[in-house]
């Protein structure tokens, strides 16, 4: 018989100042799920901050009437934390938009490090459109 599963759902207006509180709630969830300390303090918060700021600035273009939804849950098998960030935008091409920001010509750019960092920090990054554009971050537990 499968065990109890808990998911946290958070909805915020398109305002970058809301990001920190969302990250705090998901961080708390990470710690309760006994995910490695470094993933709780660095990988998840930074990857989620990137996904949220892209959703607010790129997906919703800071339109105050649009919302961003975050859903943090554990996979059915119980071995993964899955965080979905959904905006009201039309979606984008994840592989084509991911820049290698470590090459000499990109190193001194001010922007373009978000998707790259997400890829580095979590085990899987996926993007799909399904009633809104969703970026899914998957992190191995333990």
């Amino acid at each position, binding site marked *: 018989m499968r065990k109890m599963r808990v998911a946290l759902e958070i909805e915020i207006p398109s305002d970058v100042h809301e990001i*920190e509180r969302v990250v705090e709630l998901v961080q708390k969830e990470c710690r309760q799920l006994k995910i490695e300390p*470094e993933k709780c*303090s*660095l990988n998840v918060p930074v990857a989620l901050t*990137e996904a949220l*700021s892209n959703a607010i600035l790129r997906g919703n273009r800071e339109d105050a009437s649009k919302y961003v939804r975050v859903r943090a849950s554990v996979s059915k098998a119980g071995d993964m934390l899955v965080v979905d960030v959904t905006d009201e935008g039309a979606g984008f091409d994840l592989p084509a938009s991911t820049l290698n920001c470590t090459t000499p010509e990109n190193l*001194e750019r001010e*922007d373009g490090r978000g998707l790259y*960092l997400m890829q580095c920090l979590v085990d899987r990054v996926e993007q799909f459109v399904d009633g809104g554009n969703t970026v899914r971050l998957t992190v191995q537990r333990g």
Partner: protein
Amino acid sequence: MSFTIRKQGEIVVVDVEGQLIVGNRQELKQKVLDELEKGEKRFLIDFSQTGYIDSSGLGVLVSLSKKIREQGGELRLANLNDDLKTLFELTKLDTLFQISDSRERALESF
């Protein structure tokens, strides 16, 4: 989250308390540019009280470093914890900045 700026000798020292992310990076940028405009040349950002930094926070550091160099000055960093070191290594920004393990060493290094 807050930024504290003080002068130590010829050096402008900035403490970043909390996260350096998309929601507050403009504030850091403006504070440092104001000092640059007043003629300051040597800047040290101390991260001993910083949680995490996102890509736009890193972007502000890169752009400040460039602007300060254009004015003949220099930006150095100190006290990156293990998480922040990882972040600088992943983005290879550890090759772009001079990073010290302590504030004292950073201040002496100018």
